[in-house]
């Protein structure tokens, strides 16, 4: 780990000032990803700003519009087991519990989870080229070992995936990220928070360098009954998703009224195709309709050899997840048998 100075601000304004005056600064909250990356010399901040003592960011509150506001410093554990989250946003609770381990969830925060970096092997290995870690050096993953890599929205510069489970659920639930910067506060819908690699793969999100995440706001709950988070991975627990699907349906008997579908493990951001969700409106829930939706979501998917299996895997996972959601039988995150 490189050497760095540390600041321990007592207010959001002070925290923002610290990163405005130190361009090579990094915020630290739970530290579960940043400290790991610093030990691998992937992140080398010269100044670290400890957010753990900022007041007011560690609570879960009603928004007043029927939604819930999850403070940026709320731990993944606290959010997953919060009674209001479990009852009104069980999809989010399930996705949180599908990720990492209890030790990591206890330390990791909601804001930090949003800013998780990819687990691409080449990004993590400072001895290899990587456009995300060092722009302009190339992407060895495209012709290398790429079992875990993206099949949608890639660019010639980067085929990394976003690793979070939580973010996939937040995308399906259309959460909004509240941030503050020198110019004041703004709201970023989940769909616009993460970005595709394009020709700037070093940028994971549309957050500015001098902005700080305050909270995640969930809209009024609509999908408390028909939902699932289906995560497929190389081992049953504590592994990143090869493919995951967050599915949320509003049903009227056998008919779908409204659908939200987001995929994890397949792109540089949670993958949503609103046109595909539209296709389900008013349709009878069933394999035929779900398969057509899967075709649409995966339109343009491209494999790179090691990850080509993900296209068929994702197709099947979408159908299975929609079937689970329609039946009101969400995937258990303990009993990993897929029904």
């Amino acid at each position, binding site marked *: 780990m490189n050497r760095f100075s540390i600041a321990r601000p007592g207010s959001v304004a002070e925290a923002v000032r610290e990163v405005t005056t130190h361009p090579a600064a990094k915020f630290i909250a739970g530290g579960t990803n940043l400290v790991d990356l610093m030990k691998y010399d992937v992140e080398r901040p010269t100044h670290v700003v400890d957010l753990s003592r900022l007041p007011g960011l560690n609570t879960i509150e009603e928004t007043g519009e029927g939604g819930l506001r999850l403070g940026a410093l709320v731990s993944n554990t606290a959010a997953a087991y919060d009674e209001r989250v479990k009852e009104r946003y069980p999809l989010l609770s399930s996705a949180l519990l599908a990720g990492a381990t209890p030790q990591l969830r206890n330390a990791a925060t909601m804001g930090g989870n949003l800013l998780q970096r990819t687990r691409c092997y080449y990004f993590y290995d400072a001895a290899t080229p990587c456009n995300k870690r060092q722009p302009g050096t190339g992407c060895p993953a495209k012709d290398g070992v790429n079992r875990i890599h993206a099949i949608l929205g890639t660019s010639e510069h980067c085929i990394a995936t976003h690793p979070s489970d939580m973010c996939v659920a937040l995308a399906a639930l259309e959460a909004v990220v509240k941030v503050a910067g020198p110019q004041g506060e703004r709201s970023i819908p989940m769909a616009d928070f993460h970005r595709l690699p394009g020709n700037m793969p070093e940028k994971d999100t549309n957050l500015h360098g001098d902005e700080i995440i305050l909270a995640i706001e969930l809209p009024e709950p609509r999908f408390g009954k028909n939902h699932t988070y289906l995560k497929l991975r190389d081992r049953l*627990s504590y592994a990143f998703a090869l493919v995951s699907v967050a599915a949320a349906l509003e049903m009227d008997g056998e008919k779908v009224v409204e659908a939200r579908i987001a995929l994890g493990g397949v792109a540089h951001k949670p993958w949503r195709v609103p046109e595909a969700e539209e296709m389900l409106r008013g349709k009878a829930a069933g394999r035929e309709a779900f398969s057509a939706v899967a075709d649409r979501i995966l339109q343009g998917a491209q494999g790179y050899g090691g990850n080509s299996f993900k296209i068929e895997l994702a197709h099947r996972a979408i159908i299975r997840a929609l079937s689970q959601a329609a039946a009101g039988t969400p995937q258990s995150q303990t009993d990993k048998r897929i029904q």
Partner: protein
Amino acid sequence: MADLDLPLRQGFAPDAGISQALPDDIPITLTINGERRELHVRPWTTLLDLLREDLSLYGTKKGCDHGQCGSCTVLIDGQRMNSCLALAVTKDGCEVTTIEGLAAPDGTLHPMQEAFIEHDAFQCGYCTPGQICSAVGLLKEGHARTPEEIREMMSGNICRCGAYTNIVDAIEDVMAKEGAK
């Protein structure tokens, strides 16, 4: 502190953080195994390194040093966490319990320690302090009840000797006894 005496890695470009004057040590307070300690730490010292290198609490083990194996698990304010991924300075004011702090002052072992012995829940023992601290955290959380749930909730602790079956038995045993009280 020892880590400052290490030479720079071969072929590694010096960075701004090293060429500048070193930042001052930061004063922090930690309550470790019930004892309040006033400490001075470097910003980059992890809680794991502080425990082992500075405080000679060698019970907490360094395995992967990246949050993947769980051997460094300790309880921070009662919650299990990987001490290798926590910068000590960010835990200022916290209560830390390590494997050394689980037994009663008279040496009576914690029920979880007793159960690990009773069920032969280890072979080489390297992962054991982390397993036991993690299991104590699990019990306090109260989310795991069945063997299946225990396995899922202990997936952050790897045992390369493969003592998993007996580890689950030990935890179930303590859980049953706690429930019977």
